[in-house]
C-alpha cells in the first residue's frame, strides 16, 4: 500500500507541487515564528545578563515608601529617594567593590535638523557618576572627558553622530520644557538597550542630573559591584543590614531573571500573535490540498475502481489516499521547517539592518519547534485529504469496466446549499444580534456569528459562483470567444472554483474588515479629540511626559496668544473617595474647549467646579451639590458642582481652576497646554509659537490636523503590520489559484488542442486561461470585500456602544485597491498555467485517448 502511494506521489510530482508549496509556506510560517522568537528571547536574555555585569546588587526605594505614590508621578510626594549618605554607607560595607548612584529621566536632544532625535519615548537622560578615578564604569568614554558643570554634557556616540556634534560643540536639548544649551564635553559608548533600539542618552554631571531628575544629593538607584570573591547573596545580606526601611536591595541575578521573565512573556504573546496568522495561512492551504486530492482521485477513478474490483476494501482505498497525503505532508513539512529556519535567520538580519537592533546570539532550534512543525504540516495535509479519500472509497468497482473516461459527476448541490443557507442564516442572525448587545457578550456572539457566516458562505460559494460570474459576462464579452470560454470554464466545476475563491476570500475578508474598523476608529478618535477643541494648538512634551510650568508661562507671555490653559492632574479625595482633579484655566476654558453641558454652566473658578457625567455618577453628585475635596497636601476644602458635562477624549473628570489648585501642589507640572492665537492655526503662527518657546526640540505643538495625523499614523502602522502578516494567507491563496488553473489546463488539454487546431492562436488560449483566473480571483475578492465590510460594520456597531463618535467609514479607495489586488492575483496566478496551455502540443492533445 505504502509503495503504491509513494509511486503515485512521484507520478504526480508536478501536480502536487502547488500543494506542497502551500503546506510548506504554512509550516515555514509556524517554524519561522518559533525559531525567531526562541532565538531572539535567548539572545535578549543573554544580553540582559550582560547588562547586569556591573550590578551585583541594586538598591532602590522600597515599595513601602511608594505606597501613596501616584502613578502619574505627581501625586502626594512621600517618595523617598536614596540620599548620598546611604551611598557612602553602602560603599563602606565589606565586600563592596564599587558603588554607582544613578538618577535618570527624560532628555530630548535636537538633531542636525533641529528636530528631536528618536521618538520621544526613548530619549533618556542620566548622570555620569564619577566613581573611582572619576570614571563611570557603565559608560566608557570614547572621546573627551566627563561632564563636571551644569552646562556640560556627554552624549552616546550614536546620538552625537546624529546630532552632528563633536566634543566642544553645543547642542540644544530639553528636559522638562525650557531649552538648555549644553556643551558636549564627552562622547561615550554604551550597550544600553534603549540606545541600541534607536534612542538617545545624554549624561549630565551627577549634581545637575540630581537637580533635574530628583533632588540634590538624592539618587533613584544605587548599583553595587561586589569585590572579587563576594557572592551576590552574601553581599545582599550585608547590605540589607544597613538599609533603612525606605530602601530595598535586589541581586543582579534576580534583576536579570525578572527581566528575562518579562522578555519571555513579551515574546510569548508575540509568538501567539504570529501563530494566529500562520494558522490562517495553513487554513487557507487546506482548500488547496482538498482541491488537489479531489482532482487526483477523480483522475484515478478507473485505477481505484480496479483496486476495488480486485478486492481492496473501502478502508484500504481511503487509506491509500491518506498515505499519499502523509507523504506529501511530510515532504512539505520538512521543507517548510527548513525554510522556516531560514526565515527565522533572515528575519533577524532584516531587523538588524532595519535599525531595530537585535542582540547577536546563536540560532535556537528547540526540539519542540521541529516536532510541532512536522506534526502541523502532516496533520493539516491528511485532514484536508480525508474527504477526497472517503469519496475515493465510494467509487464502485464497476467504474473500472467503463471504457469511457469517467464524466465529472455533477452531484447535486441541494444538500450543500441547504447546509450553507442554514449556516449563513444563523451566522447573519448572530452577527446582527451581537450588534445590539453590549460589551463582552456581544464580542463573543459576533465572533461566533462571523465564524458561522464564513463557513456558510464557503459552503454556498458554488451556488453563488454562477450568478456572480454570470454578472461578469458583459465585461468578458469584450474579449470575444476567449472571454466567453473563460466564463464558462470558471463555472464548470463549481466546487473547485468555490474552494479556490474561498481561499482568497478568507484573506480579503480579514483585510477588508480590519481596514474598515481601523479607518472608522481612526476617524472617530480623531473627531473625539478635536471636536471639543476650540484651541488652535495643543502643546505637549514629545514624550508625553509632564511639561514644566515655565512653558505655560512662556505661552501666556506671547502677545499672539489670546487664550491659554495648562491642564494638570492632581491626586485628591472627593468626599473621602479616591479620585483626581484636573486643573485648568477656568477663565479661558470656554474659549479653548467646546464642552457639551448636560446641566449647569461652565463656571470654573474658586470653589466652583464642573465634572463629567461619569465622575458625577461615581461620587453621586448633581449640579448645585457640594462636596469636600482633600488636596494632595492633605488640606480640605468645600467645592460646588457648577455644571456637568459629557466627558470625551480631551476632557474628563473634575475640572478645578489652577488658581484654586496651585497652593496645594508642591511641584506642579502640566500635562498639556491648550493655546488659542490671534490669527488662528497657521504655519506662521505655529512657527511664531515655536520661536517663543525657544525652538525646543522636546516640545510638540500640534494643531487639530496634527492630532488627527498622529492618530492616523498609529492606526496605519498597525494596519500595515496586519497586512504584512495576512499577506502570507494571500500568497497561499495565489498558489491555490495557480493550482486550480494548472489542474484545469491539464484536464482540458484535449479541448485546448482542438481550439488550437481550429484556429485559436496562442494569444487567445493564454487570454482564455488568464480571464478564467481573473474571474475566479475577482469572485473571491468580491466575496471577501462584501463579508469584510459586513463584519467591519457589525464590529463597528459594537465599538459604537463605547465610542460615541463612531460611525462607519468605508475606505472606498482601499477597497478599490483590494479589488485590483485580487485581479492582480488572478493575472499573476495565470502566468504559468497560461504559458503551459499555449505551449500544449496540439497533436498529442487532440489524439483520442
Amino acid at each position, binding site marked *: 500500500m505504502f509503495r503504491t502511494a509513494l509511486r503515485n506521489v512521484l507520478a504526480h510530482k508536478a501536480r502536487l507541487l502547488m500543494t506542497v508549496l502551500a503546506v510548506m509556506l504554512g509550516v515555514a510560517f509556524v517554524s519561522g515564528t518559533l525559531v525567531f522568537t526562541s532565538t531572539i528571547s535567548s539572545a535578549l536574555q543573554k544580553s540582559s545578563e550582560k547588562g547586569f555585569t556591573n550590578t551585583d546588587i541594586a538598591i532602590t526605594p522600597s515599595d513601602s515608601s511608594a505606597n501613596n505614590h501616584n502613578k502619574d508621578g505627581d501625586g502626594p510626594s512621600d517618595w523617598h529617594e536614596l540620599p548620598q549618605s546611604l551611598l557612602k554607607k553602602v560603599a563602606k560595607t565589606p565586600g563592596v567593590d564599587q558603588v554607582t548612584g544613578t538618577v535618570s529621566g527624560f532628555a530630548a536632544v535636537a538633531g542636525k535638523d533641529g528636530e528631536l532625535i528618536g521618538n520621544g519615548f526613548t530619549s533618556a537622560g542620566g548622570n555620569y557618576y564619577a566613581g573611582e578615578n572619576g570614571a563611570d564604569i557603565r559608560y566608557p568614554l570614547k572621546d573627551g572627558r566627563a561632564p563636571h558643570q551644569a552646562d556640560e554634557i556627554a552624549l552616546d556616540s550614536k546620538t552625537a553622530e546624529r546630532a552632528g556634534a563633536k566634543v566642544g560643540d553645543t547642542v540644544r536639548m530639553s528636559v522638562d520644557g525650557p531649552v538648555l544649551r549644553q556643551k558636549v564635553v564627552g562622547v561615550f559608548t554604551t550597550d544600553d538597550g534603549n540606545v541600541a533600539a534607536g534612542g538617545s542618552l545624554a549624561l549630565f554631571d551627577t549634581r545637575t542630573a540630581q537637580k533635574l531628575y530628583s533632588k540634590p544629593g538624592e539618587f533613584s538607584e544605587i548599583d553595587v559591584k561586589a569585590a572579587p570573591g563576594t557572592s551576590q547573596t552574601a553581599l545582599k545580606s550585608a547590605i540589607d543590614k544597613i538599609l533603612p526601611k525606605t530602601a530595598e536591595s535586589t541581586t543582579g541575578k534576580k534583576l536579570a531573571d525578572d527581566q528575562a521573565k518579562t522578555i519571555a512573556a513579551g515574546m510569548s504573546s508575540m509568538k501567539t500573535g504570529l501563530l494566529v496568522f500562520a494558522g490562517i495561512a495553513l487554513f487557507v492551504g487546506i482548500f488547496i490540498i482538498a482541491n488537489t486530492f479531489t482532482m487526483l482521485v477523480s483522475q484515478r477513478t478507473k485505477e481505484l475502481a480496479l483496486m476495488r474490483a480486485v478486492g481492496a476494501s473501502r478502508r484500504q482505498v481511503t487509506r491509500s489516499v491518506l498515505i499519499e497525503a502523509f507523504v506529501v505532508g511530510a515532504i512539505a513539512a520538512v521543507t517548510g521547517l527548513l525554510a522556516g529556519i531560514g526565515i527565522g535567520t533572515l528575519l533577524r538580519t532584516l531587523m538588524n539592518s532595519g535599525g531595530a537592533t537585535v542582540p547577536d546570539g546563536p540560532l535556537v532550534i528547540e526540539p519542540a519547534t521541529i516536532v510541532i512543525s512536522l506534526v502541523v504540516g502532516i496533520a493539516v495535509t491528511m485532514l484536508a485529504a480525508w474527504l477526497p479519500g472517503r469519496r475515493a472509497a465510494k467509487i464502485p468497482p464497476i467504474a473500472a469496466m467503463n471504457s469511457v473516461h469517467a464524466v465529472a459527476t455533477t452531484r447535486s448541490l441541494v444538500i450543500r446549499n441547504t447546509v450553507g443557507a442554514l449556516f449563513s442564516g444563523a451566522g447573519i442572525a448572530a452577527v446582527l444580534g451581537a450588534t445590539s448587545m453590549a460589551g463582552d457578550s456581544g464580542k463573543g456572539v459576533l465572533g461566533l456569528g462571523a465564524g458561522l457566516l464564513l463557513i456558510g458562505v464557503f459552503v454556498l460559494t458554488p451556488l453563488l459562483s454562477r450568478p456572480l460570474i454570470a454578472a461578469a459576462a458583459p465585461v468578458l464579452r469584450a474579449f470575444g*470567444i476567449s472571454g466567453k470560454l473563460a466564463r*464558462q470554464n470558471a463555472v*464548470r466545476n463549481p466546487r473547485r472554483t468555490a474552494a479556490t475563491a474561498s481561499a482568497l476570500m478568507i484573506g480579503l475578508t480579514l483585510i477588508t474588515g480590519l481596514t474598515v474598523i481601523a479607518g472608522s476608529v481612526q476617524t472617530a478618535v480623531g473627531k473625539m479629540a478635536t471636536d471639543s477643541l476650540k484651541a488652535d494648538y495643543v502643546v505637549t512634551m514629545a514624550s508625553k511626559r509632564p511639561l514644566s510650568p515655565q512653558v505655560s508661562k512662556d505661552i501666556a507671555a506671547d502677545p499672539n496668544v489670546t487664550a491659554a490653559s495648562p491642564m494638570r492632574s492632581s491626586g485628591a479625595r472627593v468626599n473621602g473617595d479616591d479620585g483626581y482633579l484636573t486643573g485648568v484655566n477656568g477663565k479661558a476654558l470656554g474659549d479653548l474647549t467646546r464642552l457639551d453641558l448636560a446641566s449647569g454652566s461652565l463656571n470654573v473658578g474658586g470653589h466652583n467646579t464642573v465634572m463629567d457625567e461619569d465622575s458625577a455618577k461615581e461620587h453621586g453628585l448633581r449640579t448645585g451639590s457640594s462636596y469636600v475635596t482633600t488636596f494632595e497636601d492633605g488640606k480640605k476644602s468645600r467645592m460646588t458642582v457648577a455644571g456637568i458635562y459629557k466627558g470625551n477624549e480631551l476632557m474628563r473628570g473634575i475640572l478645578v481652576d489652577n488658581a484654586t489648585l496651585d497652593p496645594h501642589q508642591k511641584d506642579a507640572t502640566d500635562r498639556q497646554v491648550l493655546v488659542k492665537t490671534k490669527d488662528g492655526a497657521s504655519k506662521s503662527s505655529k512657527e511664531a509659537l515655536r520661536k517663543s518657546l525657544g525652538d525646543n526640540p522636546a516640545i510638540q505643538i500640534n494643531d487639530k490636523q496634527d492630532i488627527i495625523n498622529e492618530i492616523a499614523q498609529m492606526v496605519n502602522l498597525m494596519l500595515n503590520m496586519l497586512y504584512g502578516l495576512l499577506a502570507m494567507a494571500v500568497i497561499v491563496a495565489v498558489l491555490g489559484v495557480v493550482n486550480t488553473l494548472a489542474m484545469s489546463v491539464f484536464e482540458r488539454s484535449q479541448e485546448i488542442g*482542438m*481550439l488550437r*487546431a*481550429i*484556429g485559436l492562436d496562442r494569444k487567445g488560449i493564454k487570454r482564455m486561461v488568464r480571464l478564467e483566473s481573473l474571474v475566479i480571483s475577482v469572485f473571491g475578492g468580491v466575496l471577501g470585500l462584501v463579508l469584510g465590510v459586513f463584519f467591519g460594520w457589525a464590529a463597528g456597531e459594537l465599538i459604537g456602544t463605547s465610542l460615541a463618535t463612531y460611525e462607519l467609514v468605508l475606505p472606498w479607495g482601499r477597497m478599490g485597491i483590494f479589488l485590483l489586488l485580487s485581479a492582480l492575483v488572478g493575472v499573476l496566478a495565470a502566468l504559468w498555467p497560461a504559458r503551459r496551455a499555449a505551449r500544449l502540443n496540439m497533436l498529442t492533445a*487532440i489524439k*483520442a485517448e
Partner: protein
Amino acid sequence: MTTTPFGAQTAARATAVAARATDLTKVYGQGETQVVALDAVSLDFHQAEFTAIMGPSGSGKSTLMHCMAGLDSVSGGSARIGDTELTALSDKKLTQLRRDKIGFIFQAFNLLPTLNALENITLPMDIAGRKPDKKWLDMVVDTVGLSGRLKHRPNQLSGGQQQRVAVARALAGRPEIMFADEPTGNLDSRSGAEVLGFLRNSVRELGQTVVMVTHDPVAAGYADRVVFLADGRLVDELREPTADAVLDRMKRFDARGRTS
C-alpha cells in the same frame, strides 16, 4: 527523387488543386532512434473531391494529414493549401490559415462541453470574430439534420449526433479544404454511415473538398479516390473505390509487408 504527383497523372476530370504535397518529408527523432514517418511524399488533393488516405498503422497517414493541415511541422519538401506554402508560415499565420481555410473533424468529436450545439458549430467563426453566413449555416445545419437540437449541449447528444455537430462545425466556415481524422472511429456503424454520407454530400452538393484518414475500408468506400500509404511512402491509389476493392488492396499490402 521527384515523382510526378499521382493525382496529376490520372485526374483528367479534376480541376484546380486544393492542396499539394511535394516531396513532403517528416522525420521524428535523431540518430539511431530516427524514424522517417513521411518519405518524400508528393500528392495533390483536388477541389470538390473526397479523398481517403489509407494505410496500416505507422504508415504515416495521420502524419501526412497533420502536415497538410498545418498541425505539424515539416522536415522537408513543401505542403501547400491553395497557393499558400505552409512551411514558410509562422505559427500565428498558420493558426489563421487553419481558422479561415481549413475545417477539422476528429475521431473523438472534440466538442466543447460548455457550449451548446449551435455555439460549437459557430466556434471557428467566433474565434475569428466573424459573423456566420446565415443562409449557409442554415443549410449546413439542415444537411446534417440537427435543426431540432441546436440548443443541446454535447452531453445531451448521442455520439453520432456529436460527430454531426463536428461535421457542421467544419463546414460552417466554408473552408477551402476539410480534414477528417478517423471520423467514424468512435461511432457505431449506422452513425458512421450517416456521417460519411454527410461528408460525401458536402462534396457532391456543396462542392467542398474533403481529405479523410481512415483504416476502415467501408469508410474509404465513400470516397472518390483512395490513396494508400505504407512506410511513409505513397504506394498506390484507387479511383471510385468500393469497400471490397479497398479491402483487396489492403490485403495485398499486408501480404507484401509480411513477405518482404
